[in-house]
């Protein structure tokens, strides 16, 4: 964190290939398993709209594709659509960076917003570790973490 913005960074190493990791990050049959039964509505081109939809069809977060380099890098703008106080913080920037390192792929997730003390960044800081842990489990063992397979009730 610095004086002008808030950010969250998470690094994990996954025994997989960049191609499979990319597929898991973008395709609904994977995200449903590790990302609380959500799917992304996007055609994965620069400038395309991006939406994260929960199982009942509501849009949880929305933005657009800012940069895309398949199997290596994806940058999204990202705004929460659920909570007025989080939506009011405006767009954040999410970067996925994938890099083969020996038998593992290093995945770096950086989520930042241009305001100090962001409630939104605090919120996602609590969510990313379990989602990314579950993604790693899914790719390495074939099974995501049980706690991430359903959208939490009442949200």
């Amino acid at each position, binding site marked *: *964190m610095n004086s002008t913005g808030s950010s969250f960074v998470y690094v994990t*190493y996954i025994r997989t290939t960049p191609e499979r990791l990319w597929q898991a990050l973008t395709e609904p049959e994977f995200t449903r398993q590790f990302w609380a039964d959500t799917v992304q509505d996007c055609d994965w081109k620069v400038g395309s709209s991006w939406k994260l939809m929960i199982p009942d069809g509501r849009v949880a977060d929305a933005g657009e594709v800012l940069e895309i380099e398949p199997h290596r890098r994806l940058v999204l703008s990202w705004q929460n659509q659920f909570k007025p106080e989080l939506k009011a913080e405006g767009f954040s920037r999410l970067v996925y960076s994938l890099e083969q390192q*020996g038998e*593992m792929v290093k995945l770096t997730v950086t989520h930042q917003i241009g305001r100090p003390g962001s409630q939104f960044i605090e919120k996602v800081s609590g969510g990313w570790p379990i989602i990314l*842990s*579950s993604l*790693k*489990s899914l790719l390495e*063992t074939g099974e995501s973490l*049980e706690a991430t397979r359903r959208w939490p009730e009442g949200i």
Partner: protein
Amino acid sequence: MSDKPKFVYVIYIASSPEKVFEALTNPDLTEKYWFGFRVAAAGPAGSTFTARSPGGEKFNKGVILESDPPRRLAYTWHPQYDHDKHERPSRVTFDIESFRGQVRLTIVHDDFDVGSKMFEGISRGWPAVLSSLKSFLESGQTSDPSWFYEAVKKAEEEAQADRVQA
């Protein structure tokens, strides 16, 4: 917010608190996922913590500050390599909790002096060690030590490049 460096990392593992605690403290297990390092941390508070490199040298020694199996473990961290030795010991704390059928492992590494070089090193090292721990407990897969050294070296080069750019 304090200016003192503090590293925090959370990882969820399909395992039990007992298995996670044992994997963090038993050198026969750490050797399998911690890139060949033998880490001995099973003693009570006040006893010695050691980590030996794959070559057998004492890489790190400290004192167990807290041991509450299988929930909490804390020790001082004082690498013995020449370039690290001058820094005073820092502190590593693990919290192990059951969370909806999984384990939530939180590591906090803090009590560094401002501007600590070692802080940069451990910030690169822990994600690799804990990723490897998770793979080991969930799939039995062990990690080739050369991968770890390559990952840390690469991260150091990137950090160096960032500093030059800045």
